[in-house]
């Protein structure tokens, strides 16, 4: 069961965490990742963030990433929420919940989705700081993290 939301409206990570488990008695493990706008990035004092995206393609690419996670690990639920537009300091940007019978599948799938989302979903961050407004540079470490999963396509078997 996959749910993808790309929205300008703020959301609450606590409420989303509760919703991700609710009523699923077969679920032994829930892993939730929340990413937030933080005060410092590469030495810049961040005031807010603007998230641009590619409407249409964004939803499709997140759906595809979630489906690939479901093909690799036995998941009961994948929920992804990503905000776009202007975000204030401390607000959640992204939320990924993976629900499974066992913890290893939930942990791996959640990390996998974040690594792929960071390198394959069409979002771009622009930071507003005291030094003005700048497009955030991509990080080599993100590319590296995503590549690791391509080398371990057979991982699903480990968790079944």
């Amino acid at each position: 069961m996959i749910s993808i939301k790309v929205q300008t409206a703020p959301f609450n990570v606590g409420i989303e965490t509760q919703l991700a488990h609710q009523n699923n008695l077969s679920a032994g493990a829930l892993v939730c990742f929340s990413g937030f706008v933080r005060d410092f990035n590469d030495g810049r004092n961040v005031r807010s963030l603007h998230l641009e995206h590619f409407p249409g393609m964004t939803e499709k690419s997140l759906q595809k990433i979630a489906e690939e996670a479901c093909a690799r690990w036995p998941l009961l639920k994948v929920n992804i929420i990503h905000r776009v537009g202007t975000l204030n300091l401390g607000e959640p940007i992204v939320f990924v919940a993976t629900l499974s019978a066992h913890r290893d599948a939930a942990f791996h799938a959640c990390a996998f989705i974040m690594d792929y989302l960071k390198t394959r979903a069409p979002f771009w961050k622009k930071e507003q700081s005291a030094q003005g407004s700048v497009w955030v540079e991509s990080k080599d470490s993100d590319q590296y993290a995503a590549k690791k999963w391509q080398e371990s396509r057979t991982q699903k078997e480990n968790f079944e």
Partner: protein
Amino acid sequence: MLKVLFFARYRETLGTEQLDLPYHPDLTHLEEVRKTLAKQGGKWQVLNDTGLMCARNQELVELHTPIQDGDELAFFPTVTGG
């Protein structure tokens, strides 16, 4: 006709988010479209960016991906979401 979209820094540099490019059989792959645009020089050289990514019909692809008349293409900087 090909529809070409630009996002983020490229959109800002080019001052446009979309253009229509007449289809020509020489435009076999995304790379030919990129080259055609970039060789106009000036601001268009932003498409020589090493971090350039591209999409065909809203799917992430490589520059060597073949294209067809009617495709919606997109060029954008390396993504930075999440």
